[in-house]
């Protein structure tokens, strides 16, 4: 197993959950910070638009992790994976990418459909 493949495997496993966590934390911070002032804007941009961009970046990261996992699954190297751990982790990463991408889409749609600055 090359160092590059190992790095790709680690990235694939972590990408989707990290992307979802980032969307959750950054999205929350953007809305809490932006909506607490009279003119709800972040660096001149509408809070909802910023939240939307955060969701899109998070979705791209999660899907990127999923694609990397699929590539690792397709290019299986049995000699560098005697116990099948790489195959297992790549499969888990691919499934996680699907689940977390759905979560990110649902979270992103909520920020687009609902007004992030409306109380209650």
């Amino acid at each position, binding site marked *: 197993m*090359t160092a*590059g493949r190992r790095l790709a495997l680690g990235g694939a496993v972590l990408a989707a959950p990290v992307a979802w966590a980032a969307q959750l934390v950054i999205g929350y911070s953007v809305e809490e910070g932006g909506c607490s002032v009279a003119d709800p804007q972040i660096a001149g941009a509408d809070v909802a638009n910023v939240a939307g961009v955060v969701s899109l970046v998070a979705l791209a990261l999660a899907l990127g992790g999923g694609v990397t996992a699929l590539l690792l699954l397709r290019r299986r190297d049995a000699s560098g994976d005697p*116990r099948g751990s790489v195959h*297992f982790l790549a499969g888990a990463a691919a499934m996680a990418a699907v689940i977390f991408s759905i979560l990110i889409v649902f979270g992103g749609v909520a920020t687009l459909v609902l007004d992030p600055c409306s109380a209650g």
Partner: protein
Amino acid sequence: MTTLEHRAAPPLTREPAWWGMLLLIATEAALFALLLASYFYTKFQTEGPWPPDGIADPKLAKPIVMTVLLMLSSIPAYLAERNARRGDQRGLVLALLATLLLGSAFLALQIWEYTEKADLFTPRTNAYGSLFYTITGLHGAHVVAGLVLLLWTLAFALRGAFTAERHLAVQNVSLYWHFVHGVWLFVFVSLYLLPSL
């Protein structure tokens, strides 16, 4: 020039089941992190004292004993794995028994703690009550799951099922038990220690 892609790295030596346990622990850790985040969010959104609605600050004596018991239980859990690695069957059985005993004592104290707490507040009293029982109850459920896994591993250890070469179940149970212990430290500090300071 050696690129990262072509530089050789040692193969992953752990079994897929070990990685599976690690992923399970990661998801469970995320669940506890979200619950604790909900607790702190509610705490900081609540005006006035915390715990709210006249609920007294949690008493620390019993939770401290529970913490010590769980911390101590991680030692035999580690020893179980080490003894299994060395092929020491008797040591493995004794270490598993000690972990079981300490874990059961923790659980017994938690049940005792609940019987006292139920007189003061319930999950339906307010958001604090809901979060308190959800977080400690979820942790208690993890302790129960850990005890069941320990019992199962002990049953196999008594039959001599583990060798120095093959003892993955012991490794995984030990890893899980360390996680249960680690999470409790966060629960203890957040739900017991901080409100008492």
